[in-house]
């Protein structure tokens, strides 16, 4: 399994590296985003600093946006790769090999995950230049929430991929989750500012719990104090992962029945 996952990762990394301009623009866009936030943060008063876990607005927003990148990267990594394989025409050749669906799903996410980690490092690096404090980070909590974030998001990405295999264009899971996250997950403002019923929606999103945990890690909160968020994410991943693989398998079966595996 691992050599195949590595093979898929290497392929995706090589393909990404061939698009040099896009590769370079990623870093420029991160730098521009952080600089923009630094100036925007001057407009925000410290009135809600408590609900931001003691972080300044700049720190709050940079951390959230950085880790939203990880979430979205993991969410659409598999879907993007499979969609590319549809368009390149390589999907039938891949499915002709003795590669299991789970290897394909996980392998297709790895590049996005690694790339997102590098992007996070850039966000944090640029953020540090503008006042993001890194001295209190709890590395165990941070690592745990990165892993839990991936574990809870991969199944959602696999659901999204299943849709792409059947419907080709359009990924409603990604669309809904990424748009919901902007409003409900507390990316640009604390969830505590939302009305009560909206906070219930917020609670149902994995991103809310991931961002809670990650912000906690940046302020030195140990994992034991964030066990509620951690348990929530672990439970979601345990429940959703087999369901997602079954859905993916069903989608491939459907495409095989309709003869649409090579369609795009």
């Amino acid at each position, binding site marked *: 399994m691992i050599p195949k996952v590595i093979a898929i990762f290497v392929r995706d990394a090589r393909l990404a590296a061939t698009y040099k301009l896009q590769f370079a623009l990623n870093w420029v866009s991160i730098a521009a985003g952080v600089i923009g936030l630094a100036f925007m943060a001057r407009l925000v008063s410290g009135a809600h600093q408590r609900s931001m876990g003691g972080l300044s607005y700049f720190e709050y927003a940079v951390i959230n946006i950085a880790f939203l990148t990880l979430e979205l990267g993991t969410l659409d990594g598999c879907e993007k790769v499979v969609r590319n394989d549809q368009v390149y025409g390589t999907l039938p050749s891949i499915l002709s090999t003795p590669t299991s669906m789970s290897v394909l799903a996980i392998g297709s996410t790895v590049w996005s995950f690694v790339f997102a980690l590098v992007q996070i490092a850039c966000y944090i690096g640029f953020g540090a230049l503008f006042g993001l404090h890194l001295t209190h980070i709890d590395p165990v909590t941070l690592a745990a929430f990165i892993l839990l974030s991936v574990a809870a998001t991969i199944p959602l990405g696999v659901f999204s991929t299943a849709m792409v295999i059947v419907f080709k264009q359009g990924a409603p899971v990604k669309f809904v989750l990424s748009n919901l996250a902007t409003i409900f997950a507390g990316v640009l403002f604390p969830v505590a500012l939302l009305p009560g019923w909206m906070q219930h929606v917020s609670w149902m999103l994995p991103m809310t719990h991931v961002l809670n945990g990650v912000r906690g890690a940046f302020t030195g909160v140990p994992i034991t104090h964030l066990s509620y968020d951690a348990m929530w994410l672990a439970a979601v991943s345990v429940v959703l992962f087999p369901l997602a693989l079954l859905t993916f398998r069903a989608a491939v079966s459907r495409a095989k029945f*309709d003869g649409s595996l090579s369609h795009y």
Partner: protein
Amino acid sequence: MNLAQPSDVRTPATPASIAVEGVTKTFPKNHDFMTWLRYRGRPPRFRAIDDVSFSVAGGELFGLLGENGAGKSTILTMLSGLTTPDAGTIRVDGITGSSSGGAARELRQRIGMCTAEERSFYYRLSARENLRFFGNLCGLHGSALDARVDIVARYVDLRDKLDRNFETYSSGMRQRLAIARALLTDPPVLLLDEPTRAVDPVHARDIRALIRSLVVNEGKTAVLCTNLLEEAWELCDRIAVIAAGKIITVAKPAELLARAGGRRYAVSLDRMDDALVERARAVAGLSRLIVEEKPRGVRLVVDLDDGPRTLTNLLRAVSANGVSVDHVAPEEPDPFAVYASLATAAPS
């Protein structure tokens, strides 16, 4: 130019066999959303393959010959497991085509698929990177994979071009790389969809020799899908002629010719005029008459429905006006005529 041939002639283990029984396949007529809605998720389908059965013995090269759209590639994709039949069973090397999990992976391990689709590689990667990637997915790694890449690249004469980006390859080179990929794992079963499509004549000849050698010397079982009559005739042990999703006949090339044999004759006459041609055409049981003017006399090529009796009547008719019959001999049937008569006789 000679492509490398498999040099280590091995006595194969039990060659893999293929059995296809009563397979039918339908496809949606279209995939648009409105049709899908109108028919509540069950859009009308058309029948691409209709109750097809055949078997391929281990170590046999079996040809699927037919017009574009006859259903050849659909049969191949069903054999490879990329398309699921609506009805019927497919068994490759004892494994059912509709298997899932480990059995399905085992099946895919035993099949090498050469697609006719040019878009089946990563354009921005080199040929070597492409082969390595697909080799990895087939469970090959490290030096064993490198050695295998080298061998299959030699088979298709691409060894010195492996580090070029796939996008710089010509159509023929892409096709040759697809053959190389199919051979990466040295699979016992080869599914070859128009393997010489777009390939230049010299390489096409060498690829045919390679395919034949893989079957004869290594005991591989191969299904070859082709539009090229001469390719099917030259390579295949047996040919299935397909038209409109049905198998019209399955036979050895020689048997197909023999079925049509004994019915075509060449008759040389010292002269012939229009009236005589009309009398000849009026002979019952004559399906075709071709008149060829020669420097000394006329040559008639005639296709007869029932052989000798019609021939006797024809000779009587043409020799009645003092025309002398110089020579009568049976003609070897033309494979094209044999194929055309089978394909056009198929129900639409």
